[in-house]
């Protein structure tokens, strides 16, 4: 019997989504070529006034943040021994791993000279937040690769490697949590150096803390969203007995974040600015309403939280609000000081959308060929109930 006993491919049918994916990929390849052949100026709307755009604001800041579910659940199950969440650890780990690979690839597009990325390992500047970020990306991607390789070794039945993985599991998980803590917060620290540019609705010395807390909230939200999406795609039931408690934890995390955010604005004397009729205030209200108030209200209502649709909508709100928060810090809040208005070019959007599409496709392929989901309800997994 072959070791690689793959499910028989069903034959590639041209569905609507596959056609969309194909079109996106063709555009993606074209723009990739243009980006490296013509340079950043010809393909992006970036300029000396606005040097960081949507590749930093969405791809990097959101990609890292939305991967936060991985370290949160790894810690919950492997360090805190709350074993009941074990069935959703693997899909979350996969999401986190793909998230980080997404970030690494996006970074190659954004860096002016990506082939020099190894310079960060050789030329050190420990005073630079970007230096910390570079090391966190490198090390945590390595940790995620090792954590994820466990699943691959299991599939290949390499028992010797599994034994090694079992031995190093605890230090690896601890390392993963530490690196994530540093990385999530350091993305906020990056903006501490621009007090004169970042609008007061977002600038606060507590940016690292806010980035860390919001990442945990959004990471948990992503666990729910990703469970719902894969549940639809692969036809298995949502594990409400596991996801509903995550919804409850999200209320606490988002609540802490929201209160802290308002408290910091109050102490900075910016609370009144929220309702001023300016662009920044509208964007703040949008972000705070969708990302904090809406999910807390929805998820606090037991009947909504315990319903599949309600829980997923609450989680989607938290994830969207999180994305808005990151975009507001990196784009909205910088615009006024930069004296320019930044809207990403279609080519910038194509790279971001293309990378997300590749991520979705990779998730689908991985779940088909690797033991990501627990055995379906009704089989072995049924014993839990």
């Amino acid at each position, binding site marked *: 019997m072959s070791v690689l006993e793959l499910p028989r491919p069903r034959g590639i049918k041209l569905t609507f989504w596959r056609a969309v994916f194909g079109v996106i990929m063709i555009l993606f390849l074209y723009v990739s070529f243009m980006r*490296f*052949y*013509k*340079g*950043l*100026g*010809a393909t992006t709307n*970036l*300029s*000396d*006034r606005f*040097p*960081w755009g949507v590749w930093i604001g969405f791809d990097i800041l959101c990609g890292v943040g939305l991967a936060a579910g991985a370290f949160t659940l790894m*810690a919950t199950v*492997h*360090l*805190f*021994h709350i*074993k009941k969440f*074990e069935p959703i650890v693997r899909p979350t780990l996969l999401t986190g791993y793909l998230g980080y690979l997404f970030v690494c690839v996006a970074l190659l597009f*954004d*860096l*002016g*000279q*990506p082939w*020099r*990325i190894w*310079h*960060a390992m*050789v*030329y*050190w*500047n*420990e*005073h*630079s*937040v*970007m*230096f*910390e*970020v*570079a090391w966190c990306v490198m090390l945590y991607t390595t940790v995620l690769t090792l954590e994820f390789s466990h699943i691959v070794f299991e599939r290949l039945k390499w028992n010797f490697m599994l034994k090694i993985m079992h031995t190093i599991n*605890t230090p690896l998980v*601890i390392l993963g*949590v*530490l690196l994530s*803590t*540093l990385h999530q*917060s*350091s993305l906020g*620290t*990056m903006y*501490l*150096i*621009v*007090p*004169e*540019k970042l609008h007061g609705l977002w600038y606060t*010395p507590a940016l*690292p803390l806010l980035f860390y807390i919001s990442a945990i909230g959004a990471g948990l939200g992503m666990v729910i969203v990703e469970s719902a999406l894969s549940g639809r795609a692969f036809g298995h039931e949502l594990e409400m007995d596991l996801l509903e408690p995550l919804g409850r934890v999200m209320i606490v995390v988002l609540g802490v974040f929201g209160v802290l955010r308002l408290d910091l604005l109050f102490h900075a004397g910016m609370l009144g600015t929220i309702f001023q009729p300016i662009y920044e205030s509208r964007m703040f209200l949008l972000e705070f309403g969708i990302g904090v108030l809406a999910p807390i209200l929805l998820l606090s209502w037991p009947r909504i939280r315990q319903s599949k649709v309600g829980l997923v909508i609450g989680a989607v709100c938290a994830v969207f609000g999180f994305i808005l928060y990151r975009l507001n810090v990196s784009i909205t809040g910088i615009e006024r000081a930069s004296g320019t208005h930044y809207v990403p070019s279609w080519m910038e959007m194509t790279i971001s959308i293309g990378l997300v599409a590749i991520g979705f496709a990779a998730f689908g392929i991985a779940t088909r060929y690797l033991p990501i989901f627990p055995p379906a309800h009704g089989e072995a997994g049924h014993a839990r109930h």
Partner: protein
Amino acid sequence: MSHALLLDTTRCIGCGACSAACKEQNKLGADIDRVNTAYTWTTVQKAGGVNVRRMCMHCLAPTCASVCPVGAMRKTVEGPVLYDAEKCIGCRYCVQACPFDVPKYQWDKNIPVVAKCIMCAPRLARGEATACATVCPTGATTFGQRDVLIQEARRRIAADPNKYVNHIYGLEEAGGTSVLMLSSVPFGQLGLRENLPNKPLGQLTWAVLSHVPDIVTLGGALLYGIYWVTKRREYVQRIEGAPGEEVRS
């Protein structure tokens, strides 16, 4: 021995000789851009009815040097803030972080680097003044030692308090700069930021970064402690067969 420049906007007639001399000295081509770019390191801007020369301020503790992940920017004891194009990976954090919007990027190149004024470091090494100061016809740009130029700036303000705003821009801004400016109108009207802290901006991030070792050591110990306690609890429950909690391998 810290070289510096004093820019007196009240003396500037906007002739642009500094731009042209800079272009020639640094071999940046002939076309002078309207604003500072990777190919035009200094320009004279008309702002608030005043001619304002814009160039790298050569901070005493540069923000660009603080943020660069590969240490491509560094402050030299002679005064200039220099850039090593061989190290640069193109993250553009320096462009984003500079409080004076100085570093510019080669957006038109597919192998781009950052570019900015280097205070004519090769000329300084030969004991010469910067090209811009040498050609300035009105003395709007003066080359000298920083402490001497501060005295000179104070003397000019004291000699004609009605003409000058009583402030030397760059004396304390962002921890102080090697380029000092004088003006007859508030500096905000010249397109310069007046909301800068009087300390190096790098201190803001270092206040957090310096705690990374604490987070790693204390966090690591804390996490291992929680791991040990919860594992022990699980073990005890398995031995005693505690009710309520289902134990799986």
